[in-house]
């Protein structure tokens, strides 16, 4: 059984000329036990989609089922088994963290141990007895995450869960998502940050301007991202940059050999830096270790990731350096033909 299934969900705000199409004909399926990333820039319609799933908003058209219940007519049954970290939420400033979890436990008929729950999200006993009005943004976010976990839900819906969290908090949140997933909980995880989704999700749906652009495995996404990423290295005694030309300096072979490494498309030079274009982000580490092994001193490394926009472009145009053809090992293939094969490997190009 799918935990989430939407059929042609459309949400339009306003009418006439000023109407905004927040979600456009969305067909989405999330399977039991998977961690599904919902990726898209701010304003793409992610939160609106979640609002529809939770019955916060009624779809203009189409229907959605969550855990086998209609999202509109059986919203209570849906929310009985879903833990939610909503977007744009607020907590009760005058109540303590502990009280929030006690209330969440009452409302879900769960036996909860507030201190243990708080500990799980990295809040201590002192925090438990402070009112939430005194919490920082990160602490509030941790508490809200703990509230979502109360009652051991079958599905977690986390809308931009990393917002407001420091790196430690983000790591903790990822750990929790993984633990929940191992427990069999399906997780629907929305984010506008590529790295967040990439780090925890099994499959990814990409939303752009209210449309589901693609659904892919996270490996497929990695390649799409890798396709646009470039490693820039500043080397001590860079052999290529030396006036004397190649030949004498140590490690020149290593630089030359980089081109043959799997996942590296091109090696070039720019402003005295060695640039390595990768089709697979994992190739970056290989490049660095190869150079290091060859005794080349690396002064600095920077990496430019593909922007979200270029990822969308990679999925939508299927043209230039098409990830689809690369993946399917079809050197002649153009992206459009590749899309059929793509379905076999978990990729499904929707638009």
């Amino acid at each position, binding site marked *: 059984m799918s935990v989430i299934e939407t059929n042609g969900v459309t949400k339009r705000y306003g009418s006439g000329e000023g109407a905004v199409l927040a979600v456009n004909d969305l067909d989405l399926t999330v399977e039991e036990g998977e961690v599904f990333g919902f990726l898209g820039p701010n304003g793409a319609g992610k939160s609106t989609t979640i*609002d529809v799933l939770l019955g*916060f908003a009624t779809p203009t058209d189409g229907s959605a089922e969550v855990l086998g219940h209609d999202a509109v007519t059986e919203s*209570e049954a849906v929310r*009985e088994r879903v*833990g939610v970290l*909503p977007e*744009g*939420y607020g907590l009760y400033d005058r109540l303590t963290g502990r009280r929030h979890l006690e209330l969440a436990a009452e*409302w879900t008929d769960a036996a909860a141990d507030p201190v243990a729950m708080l500990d799980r999200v990295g809040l201590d006993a002192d925090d438990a007895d402070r009112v939430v009005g005194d919490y920082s943004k990160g602490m509030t976010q941790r508490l*809200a995450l703990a509230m979502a976990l109360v009652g051991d839900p079958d599905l977690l819906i986390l809308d931009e869960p990393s917002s407001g969290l420091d790196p430690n908090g983000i790591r903790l949140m990822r750990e929790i998502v993984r633990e929940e997933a191992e427990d069999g909980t399906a997780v629907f995880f929305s984010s506008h940050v590529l790295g967040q989704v990439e780090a925890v999700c099994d499959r990814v749906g990409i939303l752009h301007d209210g449309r589901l652009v693609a659904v892919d495995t996270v490996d497929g996404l990695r390649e799409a991202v890798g396709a646009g990423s470039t490693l820039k290295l500043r080397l001590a005694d860079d052999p290529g940059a030396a006036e004397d030309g190649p030949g004498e300096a140590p490690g020149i072979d290593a630089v030359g050999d980089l081109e043959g490494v799997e996942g590296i498309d091109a090696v070039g030079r720019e402003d005295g830096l060695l640039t390595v274009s990768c089709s697979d982000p994992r190739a970056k580490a290989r490049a660095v270790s190869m150079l290091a092994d060859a005794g080349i001193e690396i002064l600095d490394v920077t990496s430019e990731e593909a922007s979200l926009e270029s990822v969308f472009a990679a999925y939508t145009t299927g043209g230039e350096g098409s990830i689809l053809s690369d993946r399917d090992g079809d050197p002649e293939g153009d992206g459009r033909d590749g899309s059929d094969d793509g379905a076999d490997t978990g990729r499904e190009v929707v638009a």
Partner: protein
Amino acid sequence: MSATWRGVARKDVEDAIRSRMVWGLTGIFVVFLTLLLLAFQAQAPAGVDVGTVEALGFVATLAQLFVPLVALVAGYMAIVGERRSGSLRVLLSYPFTRRDVVLGKVVGRSVVIGTALLVAFLVGAAVATLVYGPPAAGSFAGFVAVALLFGLAFSGLAVGVSAATTTRGRAMALSIGTYVGLLFFWRPLVAGLYWAVNGSLPGLRADAWYFLLKRLSPLEAFRVLQSRVLGTEVAEAVGIPVEDVPADATAEQLEIANRVAGEVPFYLQDWFAVVVLVAWGVVPVALGYLRFRDEDI
């Protein structure tokens, strides 16, 4: 306690206690009641013996201004406030229905306002006893019951407004608009309608429908009921002279039975004012709920 209206009500009361809203409201009512009871004694002409009943009548007159205002202020943010802060999104991520939210808020705010009023009346009873001697138990109980009903009607109205609106500004405008409208415009509008139909202002005797419209105002319903339980005519808080009634008209002449022709219809009986007050509490909640139920949050 799972996700039911009781859960919402309990959390609302808890929040009101923590925010000191309960104490604030109780304090306001206590001060209001005590000051009025003392002021009434002080302003009585020397030699005139004023009793508890007259003092309570005086309180009832000014309560028409005061109780609705306080109840509206205490209630207008009940739902729209949670909507704006985003806590409604957290609340509704648990299996509450929209109906649970509205009902829970109505009950919660009613408990808060009702408690504040009751505590104030206890203090008021003590003050009245000290100043005027012990009040008659029957009329005092009646006075408290009617004032409580009045307060709860406005707390329902406030929560209804809060459910129906999506911004604080609109909720405030609608609450203030309703308050001002009831206080200053209801009677002139009804009298104006009478004039439009009959070509003259209502006099000592007028058509029954005129009195019905007049009594559909919660302020008038409250006044009618308090006059009844206290056994003395309670004055209007804002007496805009819109009726063509001689200034020296006697209380007897002003009795409703002597102002309409024939039998007094049921809707002009005093008990009907209870129905009116209940309706003012319930109908806005129902309308607000219908609006809230279908609205995106």
